[in-house]
């Protein structure tokens, strides 16, 4: 078990290390972390800070994918959440008040929870295919966000609100601490309780799970609700970073990057076994890659191509087919046989 998980994380982890190496060789100051006023700065710190929204969304996406689902609405939920938070802060008499900001964030998260629950309702109760069910909100959500902001890009000047994305706490960016908190919280909820394994069971074989007495409906529902809340939090971080609610740009295409991060982390889109650690690595790969593109000075017009190439390499390297072929190749050439640990379903049955 442990060995399998390890081997599944080997490829994404080495891709991440390789990326960092390439950057460091290209520009040695990449790896450098400086301390100013007791706060850490540097390219790596930026990556950790900037990855927060994607990290939050991808964690939720991991759980949803584990149930054999998908959540396309996360970007739209980010937009709604940012719009709700900023409208409340903007509308209050005192944008700089901590209490106002707290209320705004809590309300934004509650709204996101409701939106996530809506997705869950469509999928688990009405049995609508996840891709369709969440497409509804993906398309409608930005309209809702525009409705909330009245069609404008709401901007605010609020010290406590800006702190969320740009502030520092115990020498680390606050946004990164939010990521860490979310990773820890989700890991505890999934792995310290039985939710994780029940989610996997539902994702692998829904009917067998139902007959085993698993409340699959509730589990699927909760996955979308969690995904909604995390997307809402990501929306708050995003809005805090630009100090504005931009209903059109907030979280644009983030659902695709989140899915990519999950897949890079080794979780199958077929549902079932999921790896939160893998997703974390996947997110860091994507964020590092974006920095790399900037760092290496790839012309922005070509950057998607560069991005795509790296992703293809990592995904192909992970394919069990390729790995078993390589294993065979090693054996033929007489090299040390690698243990067959690809998760191909090997049938021993006669």
């Amino acid at each position, binding site marked *: 078990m442990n060995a399998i998980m390890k081997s599944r994380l080997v490829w994404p982890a080495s891709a991440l290390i390789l990326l960092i190496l390439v950057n460091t060789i290209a520009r040695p100051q990449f790896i450098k972390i400086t301390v100013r006023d007791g706060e850490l700065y540097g390219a790596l710190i930026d990556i950790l800070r900037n990855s927060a929204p994607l990290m939050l969304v991808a964690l939720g996406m991991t759980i949803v994918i584990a149930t054999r689902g998908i959540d396309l609405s996360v970007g739209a939920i980010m937009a709604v959440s940012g719009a709700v938070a900023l409208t409340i802060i903007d509308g209050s008499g005192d944008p700089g008040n901590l209490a106002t900001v707290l209320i705004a964030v809590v309300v934004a998260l509650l709204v996101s929870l409701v939106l996530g629950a809506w997705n869950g309702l469509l999928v688990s109760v009405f049995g609508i295919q996840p891709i369709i069910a969440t497409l509804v909100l993906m398309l409608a959500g930005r309209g809702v966000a525009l409705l909330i902001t009245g069609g404008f890009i709401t901007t605010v000047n609020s010290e406590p609100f800006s702190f969320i994305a740009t502030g520092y706490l115990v020498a680390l960016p606050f946004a990164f601490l939010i990521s860490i908190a979310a990773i820890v919280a989700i890991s505890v909820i999934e792995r310290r309780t039985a939710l994780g394994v*029940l989610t996997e069971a539902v994702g692998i074989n829904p009917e067998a799970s139902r*007959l085993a007495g*698993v409340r699959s409906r509730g589990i699927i529902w909760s996955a979308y609700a969690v995904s909604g809340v995390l997307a809402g939090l990501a929306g708050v971080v995003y809005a805090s970073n630009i100090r504005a609610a931009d209903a059109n740009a907030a979280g644009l295409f983030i659902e695709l990057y989140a899915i990519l991060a999950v897949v890079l982390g080794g979780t199958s889109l077929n549902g079932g076994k999921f790896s939160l650690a893998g997703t974390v690595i996947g997110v860091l790969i994507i964020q590092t890659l974006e920095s790399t593109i900037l760092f290496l000075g790839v012309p922005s017009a070509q950057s998607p191509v560069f991005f795509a190439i790296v992703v293809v390499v990592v995904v192909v390297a992970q394919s069990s087919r390729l790995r078993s072929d390589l294993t065979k190749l090693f054996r033929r050439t007489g090299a040390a046989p690698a243990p067959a640990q690809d998760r191909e379903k*090997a049938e021993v049955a*006669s």
Partner: protein
Amino acid sequence: MTEDNVVPPIVEMTGITIRFPGVLALDRVDFTLRPGEVHSLMGENGAGKSTLIKALTGVYAIDAGSIVVAGERKTFSTAADAQAAGISTVYQEVNLCTNLTVGENVMLGHEKRRGNAIDWKSTHRAATEHMEGLGLTIDPRSMLSSHSIAIQQLVAISRAMVLDAKVLILDEPTSSLDRGEVEQLFGVIRGLRDKGVAILFVSHFLDQVYEISDRITVLRNGALVGEYPIAELPRDALVTKMIGHELEDLAAIASSSHRVIDRSGTPVVRAEALGKRGVLEPADLDVYEGEVVGIAGLLGSGRTELVRLLYGADRPDSGTIEVHGEHAKVHQPRHAIEKRISFSSENRREEGVVADLTVAENIVLGMQARLGWLRKVPKKDQDAVVQEYIEALGVRPANPNALVGNLSGGNQQKVLLARWLATAPELLVLDEPTRGIDVGAKADIQRKVAELSAQGLSVIFISSELEEVLRLAQRVVVLRDRRKIGELDSSSTDLDGLIDYIANAGEGSAA
């Protein structure tokens, strides 16, 4: 073929070892196949027969050992490599294209050409020749899907002949054939054998193995037991070698089951007029403490439907369920589980095991579902329960971390039984628990059911094998055409009586 007295083997596999995660599927197995022989590969489910065949056909890479075909050492990395070396396989489920014609299937990839175009006329003529060589006279232009499985299998063999197969592997070819079709197939097999083709035959039917084979190789738990000429291995010796010990005396199970059940009190579970329109006419069913109630009837008679309604797997539109005399609302499987009713589906793969989870996770799943997600079964308790049931039921491999999907059918069934027993049920519903599993596992499961019911567990036991039903049950409920037609006391009937009852609506029960 050479006419030497000692025919050199066409296939020589030595020291074949294959590992899957958590499972040593084959452990240094030797196997030889000679031209002009029918060689049966025998073993229980999970003994490694399929794995050995897949090593020979290039589906699995071997971790150690060597494969020599016609004197040449081979490494197969794909099924095509093996085919090129003259090894062809006909599987249980025919792997041909049912949407093509017979001729197209036989000649696929070897069509006769005129220039660049396919010459269908001579292609079909060639197909006909190949099929007539096997005594098969059907129109090559007919759709494959219009023929029976038996004919499709012969077509598959014809195709193997087109590929000039020197080794023909028949994996459970007879499982869906009737007696006459088996005879036809055997005729073909003998014909090929006499032409010098080496035939590897796998079947669960001992009679057929003894009818057709020249030699037998026995595997057990992934290891070689031995190779024997058919004449030197009587049946009981074969079974003993397959399961590794003397077959459990089934009569002992029967005598322990034939107890008198006290039906004076309240039944553990009573269903009244339980039915669903178009699925099952309202039927009554009650089960008392320590009783095994068998359900018999033909496939599609409503056996499975009845217990699914009882368990809440399907929603009944009529009837009530009482547990210990109290009305129970069972709309969902988990309601039934709360009332300590467990149900093991006949559909092991789709509705039973969660293939990508481990043995341990599968066993604990039922308990965990009952407790809910918040209260995780502590690791220590999990380990204890898993260890207990792996030992009690003899799950092989005895590795709690093996993926259930990698286990054989019999062992998957044991894992499911363990899952349900771990929930401490008062009524255990087993739908075809012995289907498609080997002799040893069948006996294990029956023994366990008899043992548990003697300790007070109530069981509903469904099986197409009526001997099993009569052996285990004190009372047999008979269904026909989605209707309950009656109940029989199993001590007052025998197999013929039960069959007669099933067929004749109770008019001619055990006279």
